[in-house]
């Protein structure tokens, strides 16, 4: 990767610096991505400065990488250019929170953990768990849309988002959706931006539907003789409880990582009204010897999945087909788990090669699904990173929203 306008960057840096509030410039060393350092870095303290930076970058052909907590920068293809780091950390306000409406509007740089603490004061939360932890920013979790353990039991970010404001490379900001929980006014551009890795603009603000914080939660675990039995038990568990918040099959090494006995395990989280949880736990005990487990098991797995130093892949197949993939990962010495409801198989690969990942992807596709590299060294991602979907449509959209490929250049591939 090269800086695309490096020859002029010294002069441009002064232009950028003069255009925004004093004190916004940051040390570029803090913004290294895949070994590359940008020519300039800024942390705008307001939306106008953000829009100015992005517009000037676009005008001068600079490649901009917006970033928040920097936890998912190894997702997608390696960048094809990196001139300007734009840190969204300066935009971290809660814009509006109406507990009785179950809606909250926040700026993109707000950390999920800070938001959850604010919501918790009113007995509510944003029911999203993402790797590696709640340090992620709202903009980051939307742009990457990485699912966690609650996926399939609770709505995901792309379901909870009600509206968005994004900054376009042309410098303007545009909105879609709104601040009400049910709304079909116009095209849902907020869903387009969710998981788009910034392809159509820099997320500035988002509105979400929040939920009551559950009265209680409880983590249970049951050991199984092998992954086949564990998966079968998990599928029965899926049918047996309506208060599941997570349902995961762990390989032995994943169980060890979670602080549990190193054996195939079914890890369950129940959440809701205490009476409902107690009743559900009793029901589950009748189908397998579930015992209470430390809730910290989830955090350990989440941190491991979000560790960008590791090579992590996530496959998606039908829940009943997950066993095949999980067994294969286990036999290859990987650490893996299956989130049953969304059919998500997560694997941490010990000695990853492009061939091994492609082979696993072929198997996922043979089973009717997909495989995504969530983090890996740049060279590996260059070889196996996913396609953006229908390239013709995505390119046509990108042409209209970011014709010069100013934002996150190359993360969806060369053309995009």
């Amino acid at each position, binding site marked *: 990767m090269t800086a695309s306008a490096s020859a002029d960057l010294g002069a441009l840096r002064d232009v950028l610096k003069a255009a925004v509030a004093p004190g916004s410039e940051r040390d570029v060393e803090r913004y290294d991505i895949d070994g590359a350092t940008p020519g300039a870095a800024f942390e705008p303290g307001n939306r106008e400065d953000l829009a100015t930076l992005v517009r000037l970058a676009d005008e001068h052909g600079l490649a901009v990488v917006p970033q928040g907590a920097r936890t998912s920068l190894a997702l997608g293809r390696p960048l094809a250019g990196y001139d300007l780091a734009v840190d969204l950390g300066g935009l971290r306000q809660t814009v509006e929170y109406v507990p*009785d409406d*179950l809606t909250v509007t926040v700026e993109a740089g707000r950390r999920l953990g800070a938001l959850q603490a604010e919501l918790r004061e009113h007995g509510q939360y944003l029911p999203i768990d993402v790797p590696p932890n709640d340090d992620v920013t709202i903009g980051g979790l939307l742009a990457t849309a990485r699912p966690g353990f609650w996926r399939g039991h609770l709505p995901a970010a792309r379901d909870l988002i009600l509206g968005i404001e994004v900054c376009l490379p042309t410098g303007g900001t545009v909105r879609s959706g709104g601040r009400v929980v049910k709304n079909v006014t116009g095209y849902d551009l907020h869903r387009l931006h969710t998981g788009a890795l910034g392809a159509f603009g820099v997320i500035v603000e988002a509105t979400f539907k929040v939920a009551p914080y559950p009265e209680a939660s409880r983590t249970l675990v049951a050991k199984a003789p092998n992954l086949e039995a564990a998966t079968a038990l998990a599928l029965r568990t899926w049918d047996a409880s309506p208060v599941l918040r997570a349902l995961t099959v762990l390989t032995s090494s994943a169980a060890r990582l979670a602080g549990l006995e190193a054996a195939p395990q079914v890890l369950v989280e129940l959440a809701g009204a205490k009476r409902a949880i107690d*009743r559900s736990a009793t029901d589950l005990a009748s189908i397998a010897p579930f015992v209470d487990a430390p809730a910290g098991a989830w955090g350990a797995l989440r941190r491991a999945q979000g560790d960008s130093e590791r090579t992590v892949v996530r496959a998606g197949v039908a829940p009943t087909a997950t066993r095949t993939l999980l067994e294969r990962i286990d036999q290859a010495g990987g650490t893996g788990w299956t989130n049953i409801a969304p059919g998500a198989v997560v694997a941490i690969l010990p000695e990853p090669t492009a061939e091994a990942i492609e082979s696993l992807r072929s198997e996922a596709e043979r089973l009717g699904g997909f495989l995504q590299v969530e983090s890996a060294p740049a060279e590996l991602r260059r070889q196996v990173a996913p396609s953006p*979907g229908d390239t013709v449509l995505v390119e046509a959209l990108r042409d209209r929203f970011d014709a010069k490929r100013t934002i996150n250049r190359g993360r969806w591939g060369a053309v995009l």
Partner: protein
Amino acid sequence: MPTNDTGPTNDPGSLIRELQEALGASNVLHEPEDLVVYEYDATIERSLPDVVVFPATAEDVAAAVRLAVKYDLPVVPRGSGTGLSGGAVPIKGGILIVMTRMNRILEIDADNRVAVVQPGVINLHLQNALAEYGLLYAPDPSSQRVCTIGGNIANNSGGPHTLAHGSTVNHILGLEVVLPDGRIVRLGGRVPDAPGVDLRGLFVGSEGTLGIVTEATLRLVRQAPATRTLLAIFDSVAAASEAVSTVIRRGVIPVAMEMLDQEIIRIVEPRIHAGYPLDAGAVLLIEVEGVPDGVAADSAVVEQACRDTGAREVRSADEAEERERLWEGRKAAIGAIGGAAPAFYLLDGVVPRTKLPEVMTQVLELCREYGFACGNVFHAGDGNLHPNIMFDPTIPGATERVLELGGAIMRACVDAGGSVTGEHGIGLEKRSYMEWVFSEADLDAQRSVREAFGPADRFNPCKVLPGGHGCASGHASEVMQHLGAGSYV
């Protein structure tokens, strides 16, 4: 985009012949007496298509679209025609593609909670087929006895149970669609969170302006082991509205919270005998579900919240038949209004839940000011209003005033921080209101999306976005130009 080598042709005879060759003669209607059946949907808008086709496969749809390109004609998709915003009206003529022949449930994968269906499947038919597996497809628009899954996808339809389960977009895993250039592509898949840009999420709710759905992969949910329906009776809409917020504030999200006001109760009860007291100011129908112990706990919270906000009585039903009876009044309400007034205009607006009491007061005041009876039956838990303005269109000037009143109510929703549609869509009806909600830059971004999928006047022209070549300029003119005496609005 494929180009038309020979340029557009205007020979309608050769278009009909080519469509007949591609789809079969019996699947192409072009005689005036046949076309007239397809000039309207559930609104009053009327406009004749040039030709109506009934495809059986995605390839049929693609063939029709390619011919539309060749003859430079608009394409308008249509399901059962139950839309309430004029979305299926071929306002500029062209080829109307009716999807009702593609009505097969292709697969129910109960173990993985997935169904694959063609777009012409009736929502209720799917629900009935899923019941034997103990599964359901959550979106349940009030028109579910007739509306199609494809229409639901086009409008991102909701329904009473949207409160807990979300709208259609939350239940669509994947789509096969025919794009405006005739390409057949798949968006999403059989499992969620596939890598790539979420074109599926963008497509749902695009009202037939970006393409036509030819197959849908749906996420199913397991039926809850226990369900309880509560009927809470209040002296006023304001008290019932306060109860809605109080329930939410106490940490319970019922699966449905529906309100019927006094006007509606007085229309519905004599016809349906659902047991709603005629002297009630409003009733709330509230449903909770889950494991039996959880349902009992949540019901207790709901009941107390209702009593604390002035409910004079709270009834509850656990058995299916009993619950169904309580729901019957809600489900039959719109039909009952049809029998009680010469015509009525069903509105769809949405406000923040906490603004419900204030906006409902405004709605009733506006109706009084304009001199029309107005019944309200709506999704209170979502803040999704459905005022039904009753009027006699044979009285000179009445229809114009009703439309003006509708606009004033929509404006009140927007001013309260809400929007102009929660589930019926923009269609033709509300294009001009889009400017109340979005800036010109916002609308330009939406136009860019439309252009990325194809020429803006190819698929469902004059829908969703204001402006457009040859489209009428404002709501009143769009509605009025096709209004006839005695029309149902």
